[in-house]
């Protein structure tokens, strides 16, 4: 529904400039979301740039004052999955490499707990991982995440809930095999880190 006086982002130069400012402000968030989908930072930035340009090109269909963050995330997600479909054969051939990059950790000095979290996330089904990231890290309401993913609110809720349970199980059970770290170490380290972070705040 269009409010009276609502205008699309290409209505006039001033509106367009405001749209551009808001879009620029969203770049860091688009990069972070892209990183969770694409895995390696270079292709994630390519994806974020493509999404940014798609949003710019589609500005005439954006109503100023509506949720631009959710709108751009939806564009980025659609871009990711359409590219993935295009390169399906290639993906099949390169499946093993894709799985490696998904859980790649660039910074060797990254805290262990974060490392384990990335590994754990990499083990979740993609639709659960995505729902958990949007709601748990991206700060979206269930309704917004549902809009971004093009599914029902109840579906998002159940995906997030299953993702949370599965992730906790992975982190506690040491379902992965990693440098001989014993089961439960990841969860202990995450608990300790969370405590430290919350006392800093």
């Amino acid at each position, binding site marked *: 529904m269009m409010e009276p006086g609502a205008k699309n982002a290409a209505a006039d130069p001033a509106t367009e400039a405001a749209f551009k400012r808001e879009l620029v402000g969203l770049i860091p968030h688009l990069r972070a979301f892209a*990183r969770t989908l694409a895995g390696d930072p270079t292709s994630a930035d390519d994806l974020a740039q493509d999404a940014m*340009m798609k949003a710019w090109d589609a500005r005439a269909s954006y109503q100023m004052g509506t949720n631009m963050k959710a709108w751009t995330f939806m564009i980025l997600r659609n871009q990711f999955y359409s590219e993935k479909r295009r390169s399906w054969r290639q993906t099949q051939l390169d499946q093993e490499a894709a799985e490696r990059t998904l859980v790649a950790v660039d910074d060797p000095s990254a805290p262990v707990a974060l490392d384990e979290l990335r590994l754990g996330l990499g083990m979740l089904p993609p639709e659960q991982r995505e729902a958990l990231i949007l709601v748990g890290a991206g700060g979206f309401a269930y309704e917004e995440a549902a809009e971004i993913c093009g599914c029902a609110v109840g579906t998002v809720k159940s995906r997030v809930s299953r993702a949370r349970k599965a992730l906790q199980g992975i982190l506690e059970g040491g379902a992965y095999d990693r440098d001989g770290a014993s089961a439960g170490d990841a969860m202990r380290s995450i608990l300790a880190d969370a405590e430290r972070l919350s006392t800093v705040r």
Partner: protein
Amino acid sequence: MDQRRRGDPSLDEARLRQQAIGVKLRQMFDEVVNEAVPDEFLEILKRADERQQSDKG
């Protein structure tokens, strides 16, 4: 505050663990959000904007 109404301390423990995972998730995401945006992003957007200006004029 009736988390213990069934006398089950593991409920509190589970909640604590989920909160901890949530904190780490946000930390992971915010790490990238707080990175400096590569110049390329703004350059691409600027080029597109200029291209459109010259199309109009």
